[in-house]
């Protein structure tokens, strides 16, 4: 019999710095299904839906990424890509890293 074989699509992982993990129930990595095109903005929407306070730590109420929050996709910071419209491929890791600003 001939037929199509469906392979499971690997999830997208969002890796959190330790300081934010309490806001995600202690998890260091959150996963989201890659069911269709996923952008960083959509991924953060999904995070905010489950963990609203965590969502507010990453973006302000206009949806803008906070100034000293850096998000890396494919090893590159999203501000150097398409910002929150940067696409995330299935199985890719998205890193949240706080900027080295501060005093």
């Amino acid at each position, binding site marked *: 019999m001939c037929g199509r074989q469906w392979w499971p699509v690997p999830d997208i992982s969002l890796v959190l710095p330790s300081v934010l993990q309490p806001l995600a129930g202690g998890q260091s990595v959150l996963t989201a299904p890659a069911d269709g095109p996923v952008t960083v903005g959509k991924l953060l929407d999904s995070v905010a839906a489950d963990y609203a306070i965590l969502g*507010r730590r990453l973006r302000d*109420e*206009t949806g803008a990424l906070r100034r000293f929050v850096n998000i890396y996709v494919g090893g590159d910071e999203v501000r150097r890509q398409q910002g929150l419209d940067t696409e995330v491929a299935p199985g890719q890791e998205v890193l949240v890293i706080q900027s080295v600003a501060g005093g």
Partner: protein
Amino acid sequence: MVRMATAQTFLLAIGTKKGLWLATSQDRQEWSFTGPHFLMAEIPSIGIDTREGRTRIMVGVSSPHWGPTVAHSDDLGATWTEPEHGAIRFPEDTGAALERVWQIYPDAESRPGVVWAGAEPISVWKSTDGGEHFELNRGLWDHPHRSEWGAGYGGAAAHSIVVHPGGDTVHVAMSTGGVYRSLDGGTSWEARNKGISAYFMPDPNPEFGQCVHKIAADAVVDGRLYAQNHHGVYRTDNNAESWDSIAEGLPADFGFVMLAHPRRAGTAWVVPLKADGERIPPGGQLAVHRTDDAGDTWTRLDAGLPDKEYNSVLRDAASVDTAEPAGVYFGTRGGTVYASADEGGTFTEVATHLPDVLCVRAAVVAGA
């Protein structure tokens, strides 16, 4: 209400550039500290709500990385709560985002659920659920002067809110913009700066644009308020229709602090700083100055303060409690906090080597 010191607990909350410290005392001499709470976040605003017997501490928390929020504690800081979607959140149509909460002000005893907040960008907020959710004051947000308001060094914010305990009059001070008054509970606002100098502008007496650093209302005399301006100390006796200088007798007319006595008419405190070039206590000699006649004369108070102190005292880094006699508290940008249990007559050092002190609030609380 007069609260006797002997039967009460005193709560001192110290907001700094890197966290919050809380202290309690039975006698205002010995203090027990907890903290830092919110380590590595600024605490620029604190409100202690003691109405109806509660002790709720509300704090504006600003992380340089993770943004601003408002949290509250009903157990003296053992646990903190913040609403999931934020206590202060700009409505979508404004296109604005909260930068920093500069003021948290519990309203009068007669309005026990009402808490006001002042924020950056310049905005005033009102909560009717004890400070858990705030609503933007649209009258001030949509004010036609908004486009001309400016930013002081610390940002553009509404930093002082004074609400008449028995009526609908609200005064707000902003940097820069000056004093605005509402006679209808915050629905409409008018600039009320006549007599306050704005020497840094082409017209030194504009309708608005002044850099008022702090205002406080006299506890007894209706319509009397005091203002510490960016150069200039003022009083109004006519509900801010006009302001008159009360700076004579002070070593400097610059400063950030303005405190009024919780019960007694005519008593207020300032902490003069030399400016604009130095911004330190004049000659490096820190002193609080108190008036007991609404600014006609001033008394220098420095007993217990160091011989030399080169740090400034910021606008909200000072407070009074409601005990008899009233306690006076203030902290410096050098991280030292001083307390007086006798209205400024004698100060003691209650904390040292903290990060820059941004906000100090003191209250007489139940239990603890």
